[in-house]
């Protein structure tokens, strides 16, 4: 079974960013994304998802390396300073490279 390497970019951030963030990643070349609801704790304190202001989302994008770099750079420049956020990237293999 032939498979191809792509990047999986994961962002955990404030739920309030969902609408703008998905616009951003699509504009920057992602062909899709997946979101799950999350809670957690980090440098900006606990975010326990008891109510809307306090909730996190976990956004995943499978894409090629340049797109992942583009999204990471954009997100760093626009959101790192003011928002609770982490971002990490890993390698994944996929079967349909044209999809991502």
């Amino acid at each position, binding site marked *: 079974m032939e498979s191809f390497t792509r990047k999986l970019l994961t962002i955990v951030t404030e739920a*309030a960013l969902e609408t*703008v963030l998905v616009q951003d990643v699509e504009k920057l070349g992602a062909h899709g994304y997946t979101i799950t609801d999350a809670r957690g704790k980090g440098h900006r*304190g606990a975010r326990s998802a*008891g109510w*809307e*202001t306090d909730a996190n989302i976990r956004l995943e994008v499978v894409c090629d390396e340049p797109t992942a770099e583009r999204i990471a750079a954009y997100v760093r420049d626009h959101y790192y300073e003011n*928002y609770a956020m982490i971002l990490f990237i890993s390698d994944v293999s996929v079967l349909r490279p044209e999809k991502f």
Partner: protein
Amino acid sequence: MIDPVILFFLLGAAAGLLRSELRLPAAVYELVTIVLLLSIGLKGGIELARQPFGALVPQMLAVVVMGFALALLAFPVLRYIGRLKRADAASIAAHYGSVSVGTYAVAVAYLGSREVAFEEHMPLLLVLLEVPAILVGIVLARGFSRGTRWGSVAHEVFGGKGIVLLMGGLFIGWIAGPDGLSSIEPLFFDLFKGILALFLLEMGLITAAQIGGLRRHGLFLVAFGIAMPLFSGLIGAGLGTVLGLSLGGTAMLATLAASASYIAVPAAMRMSVPDANPTLSLAASLGVTFPFNVLLGIPIYYSIATWIHG
């Protein structure tokens, strides 16, 4: 005698402070909020159906001016006495110029159990008061020039859950009138106080979680979170009297003025003034002002109104 819904708030706060395992799922919080917002809107809409809309225009304008003024008055206090960053001062000012639907609902329960009537179109003023302070906050933080995308600000504000449901309820109540709504009364009116009790239980838990933010940021916020609503309540009571509102209506307008937003404004500030620290504004509005108003403020504003009217 203390209203039982207040006891639910205290229960939630105690459970939160004692770190109990009690949590309300986010979906339950949303359901309860949605029903409260619709109830309040519907109640106000029924009243709008009863009177000429034109007669309300002066009140509406006056209230909008009050919203602008309260935010503008709060800002220098926060900036120069509290020595907060510009963005933080602007954001907190916006919270206090705007209103809290939860506080309004408790005031409805308070006046209701005392059988004090008030102008039922209050929810219209409530909606109007949500907006001006947000504009003030953004302009204070960023000036007029810095390329604020007002289109998306407007979308943010008017598309938020709070305003959509309040306005939607107002419209539906207006069009359907009291008879039309009788079939949905059991859910939206009869259950109102029970649902308010669940809401306040959750608010107690949320409030307790803000205390941390408070501890980290000093006594100024506590003082401001009590003094500002007292001051605003006085302004609101004065304006209510000038506008010729009844005793209940005056107490209500005082409460609205004194309340601080924790839904619409935080969301708007997060997007439009991202460099403001949300921990500060929520610690003040939820950690101090909301419990103060619910436990002590509303009776005080009612006394003020009685005293002015007496």
